[in-house]
């Protein structure tokens, strides 16, 4: 049976992992490769690296990080932040990333999803959606790190993303991000039921129960950052807990 995935997310600024609360007040945490190794050993199923600076000169530092991570760990990882062109995607995939996450650039130019999916395959094109509730049960897509309200309905954009060729969606609920009060269940559930591609829930994880609830509500994977970075939730224990909750997870690497 296909396992539900636990995905630590690492925001990288000038080659270091940082964690922001609602995208602001960024704090330095650790070296990306070290954290990646630690998470791999703890049983993370996948990793996400967001380049949050994404200015041109710093892009090369980030590509080095990508390559070093690929060298050190043998689990899949996604790279996002500042991806604007098919060539950008090509570069990170060639550096050793498995998937690329596109956010603002896809809103500006939806054709980028189609072009890159055709070139590299849908399976490596992840559409990341920053969504915020602007009226009851109405979520809009935000871009530019959460600063710009596009006015686009998040559920409609998720559907369109699938049609354009995205192979996976990350639904980042901005209202709950960094608050540790749980994932946005309503939004995640609606989107998971609407599309036929995997959906990753993001934003709001604070306890083990939050993971369990969102995975039971239809998310295929649950992403979190600070609860892992600060050791508030141990991935091994989390997976044991999820298994006890009858959620299928990959556990135990013992084979000899």
């Amino acid at each position, binding site marked *: *049976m296909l*396992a539900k995935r636990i995905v630590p997310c690492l925001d990288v600024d000038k080659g270091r992992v940082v964690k922001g609360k609602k995208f602001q007040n960024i704090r330095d945490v650790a070296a990306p490769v070290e954290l990646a190794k630690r998470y791999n050993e703890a049983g993370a199923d996948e990793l996400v690296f967001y380049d949050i600076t994404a200015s041109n000169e710093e892009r090369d530092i980030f590509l080095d990080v990508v390559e070093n991570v690929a060298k050190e760990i*043998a*689990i899949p990882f996604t790279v996002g932040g500042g991806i604007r062109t098919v060539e950008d995607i090509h570069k990170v995939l060639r550096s050793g990333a*498995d998937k690329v996450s596109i956010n603002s650039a896809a809103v500006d130019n939806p054709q980028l999803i189609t072009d890159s999916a055709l070139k590299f395959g849908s*399976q490596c094109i992840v559409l990341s959606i920053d969504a915020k509730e602007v009226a009851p049960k109405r979520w809009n897509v935000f871009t530019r790190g959460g600063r710009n309200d596009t006015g686009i309905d998040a559920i409609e954009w998720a559907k369109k993303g699938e049609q354009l060729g995205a192979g*996976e969606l990350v639904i980042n609920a901005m209202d709950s991000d960094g608050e540790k009060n749980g994932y946005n269940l309503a939004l995640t559930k609606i989107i998971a039921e609407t599309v*036929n591609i995997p959906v990753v829930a993001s934003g709001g994880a604070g306890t083990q129960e939050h993971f369990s609830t969102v995975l039971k509500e239809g998310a295929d994977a649950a992403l979190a950052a600070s609860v892992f970075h600060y050791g508030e939730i141990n991935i091994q224990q989390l997976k044991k807990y999820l298994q006890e909750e009858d959620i299928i997870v*990959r556990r135990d690497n013992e*084979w000899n």
Partner: protein
Amino acid sequence: MIAIIDYGAGNIKSLQFALDKLNKKSVLTTDPQVIRDSDSIILPGVGAFKDAMDAINGLGLTKVLQQEAAGGKPILGICLGMQLFYEKSYEDGDWEGLGLLKGNVSKIKDTVKVPHMGWNTITKHKENPLMNGLPNDVYVYFVHSYAVGSLEEDSLVGSTQYGGVVPAIVQQGNITGMQFHPEKSGDIGIKLLKNYGEMIS
């Protein structure tokens, strides 16, 4: 020396890093002579079937791969690389593959989410040195939307379950295929590559 066919498929670096960990020398190449001189060949791959075959044809490698396979050289296909071994794919059309193995490639049923993405278990269909030291139901990492069907039953070493039976490891003579990514499957994947290396040496 292992020749990794570099026909433009996405993430090849991870495969090289995995081989480095096992002290297996590899080279990324599209040079027919390098491929002919190699001890074994790996055909990696992510992306679309047609694009991959177009690239391989464009590089003049179709014949080279078919000849090397017929000559008995060990060839490992990973993910799309495995699918390219078969006669035909119905991925957005009707395309001819390398024809090294009997069978065809078609889309995973949409009763499940497509792509099949994530960690899934392998059920053994028969004893094979590739699975040495590995219990049943180990998790490996899959990312694909198409799967092999109508294959020769005795070539099936291991399968997974996703909207039906999905061939995960196939082997016939010197031809081996892995639908998942061993280079992305943690310790289990490294162990599988190690077993493969021992099997062909």
